[in-house]
């Protein structure tokens, strides 16, 4: 089964951290990534730029409208994701719990929809 682990954390608070703390967190992320590559869980991942860079797009009656900012304003923001392969939800939760941001933010685990295209 494929699962998407969505990482939510307070990016505003993150910006005020000393450089050494940020570097430490990055190192933890690299170590986490190495470990899930070794265990075969890793499929892909990306970190996102801050929500201030987000644009939301809608098309109504054939007209495109864009608004600055994310779709949803939350205290903790979507900061990135890991796409993983896991035996089942429990296995996926064990992986998600090792994502460094789970300690200061939250990680939403969602199964990926599988469908065959005819």
């Amino acid at each position, binding site marked *: 089964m494929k699962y998407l682990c969505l990482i*939510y954390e307070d990016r505003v608070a993150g910006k005020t951290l000393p450089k050494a703390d940020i570097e430490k967190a990055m190192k933890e992320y690299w170590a986490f990534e190495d470990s899930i590559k070794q265990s075969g869980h890793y499929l892909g991942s990306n970190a*996102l730029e801050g*929500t201030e*860079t987000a644009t939301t797009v809608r098309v109504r009656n054939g007209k495109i409208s864009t608004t600055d900012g994310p*779709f949803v304003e*939350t205290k903790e923001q979507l900061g990135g994701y890991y796409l993983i392969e896991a035996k089942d*939800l429990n296995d996926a939760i064990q992986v998600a719990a090792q994502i460094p941001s789970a300690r200061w933010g*939250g990680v939403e685990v*969602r199964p990926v*929809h599988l469908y065959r295209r005819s």
Partner: protein
Amino acid sequence: MRYLCLIYDDEKKWQGLSQKEQEAGIAEYGAFTESVKKNGHWIAAERLQPVHTATTVRIRNGKQSTTDGPYAETKEQLGGFYLINAKDLNDALQVASRIPSAKWGSVEVRPIWETTRP
């Protein structure tokens, strides 16, 4: 530049559609995916299972807690994503406006934070 297009739409509306209408929606998505694969925008895409299958994981003081449900309760739910290559934000917004759900939901476009690993 790489951009993540996050698709938000009302799951309940989708569930309320007839089988024929759902098939038409899936066919529209199929055509969109084909077109972005042909023009080189496509990198990856996934559709997610409904939010009732989501689990949110947090670690506090070394203890793991899991709660059922998504990180954020919203009127429209994150239903999937496209990871695309685009010249710039305008190009990305043009692609995002062709995602079928932009007509009945919203698409949030976020640039990828390109990190270089030391």
